[in-house]
């Protein structure tokens, strides 16, 4: 039979894989990324400390001392709160890129209460006012773009992005007014600090962690069980469908963004009232953008997002320690390494959804056994490759009705044939047939 050139790479969609397999692949991807980073760092660092010291530094930076551990938790909690605030809007397909601004304006409102009222009123009263002011300020900052979106259909991404800068310069303005010494910095305020649970870092962190737990539980229930949450997803799915279901779309957009902004404002309240007792233009810590990553990597699920937020903070804090231990004078290289790890972590998603066939040999279509290998640079999930090797022929018994919509997600079953039956068949055939018949 005549030999014809096959395309080198051939990509097909794979069956949904079991949870543990996906987790293994992700874990493997991170592991390999870390090993590559370790080789990279230990080979090029100014201070030679060896391959395994990388891992030592990484973990010691994140969990090394009790204080570091609590700081890790604190940062995770704050980042998670911001990400949850964004998810509420994202569920509605409202791309709120204004997390930073909403946090900052919350910070500012809180600092204002502390600056003007601290020491004059009783602390509990000021604290209460700080809370209300921060939450309200965050909400207002998010509602402004929401109103424009609802009534004039402006682009919410640009709008919220610009609101970030306004908030930032407002903060800079007030610092300059309060402390006109030209440094642009503000000393911590002594009055009206939030109460702590005991002394030390743990005492300061616990209320924040508690707040994060409450917010997580609330957002989880709000999105999953409430009428409002249903409306949010419906508006996100299709505004037409939402109108058809009798929903006031404008109202839902504004209400949802108020909630999103209020949650960001709450983070501002915690940052100023509990963590820093002062405000600065970079107080948001860029959480508004990191939060976007948390939301997407966590697939908009509050519980997975908690894990992702922890992972991201583990990396940042760990790599900062690596940076110090290996003698780097700036953070550029460690940032690259963090980027590398993200790249692997996000990149492996592709191989969870798709399968890549490599045609290394020129084959005739029918006579040669087909080789399929997963192009997985991180090389994770070897068992998986073997199981998928016999891919096309094993599906022979599955008759299916498929149109183009398969491309999007793959239909479950054709009319008239029970999907469970299909799945069983697929499994049994897979076991029986190892290799393709040769004709």
């Amino acid at each position, binding site marked *: 039979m005549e030999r014809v050139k096959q*395309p080198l790479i051939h990509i097909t969609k794979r069956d949904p894989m079991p949870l543990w397999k996906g987790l293994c692949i992700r874990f493997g991807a991170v592991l390999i990324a870390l090993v590559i980073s370790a080789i990279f760092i230990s080979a090029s660092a100014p201070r030679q400390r060896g391959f395994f010291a990388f891992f030592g530094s990484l973990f010691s930076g994140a969990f090394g001392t009790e204080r570091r551990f609590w700081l890790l938790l604190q940062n995770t909690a704050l980042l998670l709160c911001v990400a949850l605030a964004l998810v509420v809007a994202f569920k509605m397909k409202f791309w709120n890129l204004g997390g930073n601004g909403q946090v900052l304006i919350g910070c500012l409102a809180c600092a204002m209460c502390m600056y003007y009222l601290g020491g004059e009123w009783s602390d509990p009263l000021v604290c209460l006012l700080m809370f209300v002011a921060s939450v309200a300020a965050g909400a207002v900052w998010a509602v402004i773009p929401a109103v424009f979106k609802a009534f004039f259909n402006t682009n919410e991404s640009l709008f919220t992005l610009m609101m970030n800068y306004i908030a930032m310069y407002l903060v800079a303005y007030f610092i300059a007014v309060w402390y006109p010494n030209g440094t642009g910095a503000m000393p911590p305020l002594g009055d009206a600090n939030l109460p702590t649970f005991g002394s030390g870092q743990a005492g300061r962190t616990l209320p924040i962690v508690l707040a994060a737990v409450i917010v997580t539980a609330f957002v989880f229930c709000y999105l999953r069980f409430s009428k409002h949450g249903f409306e949010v997803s419906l508006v996100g799915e299709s505004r037409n469908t939402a109108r058809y279901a009798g929903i006031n779309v404008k109202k839902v957009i504004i209400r949802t963004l108020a909630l999103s902004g209020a949650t960001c404002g709450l983070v501002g309240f915690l940052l100023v009232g509990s963590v820093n007792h002062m405000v600065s233009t970079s107080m948001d810590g860029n959480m508004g953008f990191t939060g976007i990553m948390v939301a997407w990597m966590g697939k908009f699920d509050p519980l997975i997002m908690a894990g992702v937020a922890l992972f991201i903070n583990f990396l940042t804090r760990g790599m900062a320690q690596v940076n110090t231990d290996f003698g780097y004078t700036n953070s550029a290289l460690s940032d690259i390494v963090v980027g590398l790890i993200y790249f692997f972590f996000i990149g492996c998603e592709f191989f969870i959804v798709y399968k890549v066939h490599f045609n290394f040999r020129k084959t005739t279509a029918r006579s040669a056994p087909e080789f399929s290998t997963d192009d997985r640079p991180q090389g994770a999930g070897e068992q998986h490759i073997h199981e998928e090797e016999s891919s096309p022929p094993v599906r022979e018994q599955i008759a*299916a009705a498929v*149109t183009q919509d398969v491309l999007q997600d793959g239909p479950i079953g*054709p009319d008239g044939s029970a*999907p469970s039956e299909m799945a069983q068949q697929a499994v049994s055939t897979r076991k029986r047939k190892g290799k393709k018949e040769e004709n």
Partner: protein
Amino acid sequence: MAEHALELRHISKYFGSVAANKDISFSLNRGEILALLGENGSGKTTLMNMISGIYYPDEGQIFVNGEEVKISSPQDAFRHKIGMVHQHFKLVDIFTAAQNVVLGPYTGGGRYGVHRINAQVAQIAQKYGFEIDPKKKIYDMSVSEKQTVEIVKVLYRGADILILDEPTAVLTPQETEKLFAVMRAMKEDGKSIIIITHKLNEVMSISDRVAVLRKGEYIGCVNTADTNEQALTEMMVGQKVELNIERPVTQIDRPLLEIRDLCVKNDMGSPAIENLSFFIRGGEILGVAGIAGCGQRELCEAIAGLRKVEGGGIYHEGESIVGLSPKAIYDKGISMSFIPEDRLGMGLAPSMSVTENMMLRNYQERRFGIKPIHASETDKPFAARCKRLLNRMGAFVDRHDPFVDRKRARAEAERVIEELDVVTPSTETPVRRLSGGNVQKVLLGRELLTEPNVLITAYPVRGLDINSSYLIYNILNRQKEKGTGVLFIGEDLDVMLALCDKIMVLCHGRMMGVVHAEKTTKEQLGLMMAGALDLAEEKGKTMGVAKDSRIDEREDETWSA
């Protein structure tokens, strides 16, 4: 035996674990028209996409003129002189016909010259008998003209093998005849054509041979002359199918929904419906025929309260419903299910589960179920007041129950799945993962749950297989027997003639007349759809036109409360 223009051997394509095409082998002779027949989802389009280079087959070989070829991009397909006309046109709206035709792979031949190209396009058109103005802009064109441009485009690039994906779905019967004439001319010229269609009568009239697919498998190929519609259906479905649609006679009620001089604008702000008047009685199915974009969508949306009514009135049992919220209209028992072209656009949330889609209409109804405290006569005034206050607070809390009722929705989902035979792995599967027919059943099932008294349904069988279609016709008939007024917006005139009691024809938002289904013909409807025959103006004198075609003059008989 002559060499085949195109031959497929053992072609397979898988998406995940589902086989879209499995081991398909057939051939296309030179100068023949081959009809590719199969139910929706049987893999026709996937197969054709592999031939035209959009997908790459997982297994198998393709031979063109006896030589094996690999087609991994549309450019490859053009190189092998294969051209496909897609169901959804791929044209640049602001370009002229000729400009669209020359878009694409550079075919050589010097400078881009408008006159030369116009002349070339006109020449191709003349050769095969197309009617086309090369200088006309696409946005000025009707659907059939756009299709002509698509076909000319493929011919201009020198295709010898043409694939037409459901070309007749958007055409009136007259336009279809014209297309078939062109196809025959192309065949005379030695072109080979594969036509994908659902309509059996068209298969019988145009094709030389018929290849049948069923659930991704190749069933067989027969000469058109040796077969008939019934046999083809059986090949397609795999079992015997009764092809008659019943039209039960019912007690016709007073008009339920009356539309008077309705004017509605489309999204662009130009009139979509102009001075439309008609009514639906309980116990009848009123069909609405018209080519795509003649205002059906706007009409549905206006009735359901989703689109602003610019003028005129909509009366439900004599009460005006203009200006009411969609929810209020729905609560009156007017239910609308519109199946747009993508089947998911309106009425369903594609990423949500079947259960959640059941909630869509009634999620607001869940209450805590707080019972009022019973006041007794022996209560002291203070106690009575407290009880009243508590009851009022209880009622308030009850009204503001923040949660959705998933349990009830799941029960409803199960009921719909069982009654309408929906194939789904579970009630929690996103509807976008269901196949087209099942999606439509979910939508229709939900709308029927509330037992509406006016059911507006647009394209309920769009793209459905034969069995599912008949199931839906039966559902509509059952509703009709219950005394529901059904407005049925359809595409297939044969079906409408068999199912509907009366058919209203729209053309560019104007009513061309209402005719009794049993007294009219497809040809007459086709003329009306194209705007060539206007019965509305003839004051009920033409045969087969319903007396209430002009509702204004018969006000004495229209009922209002």
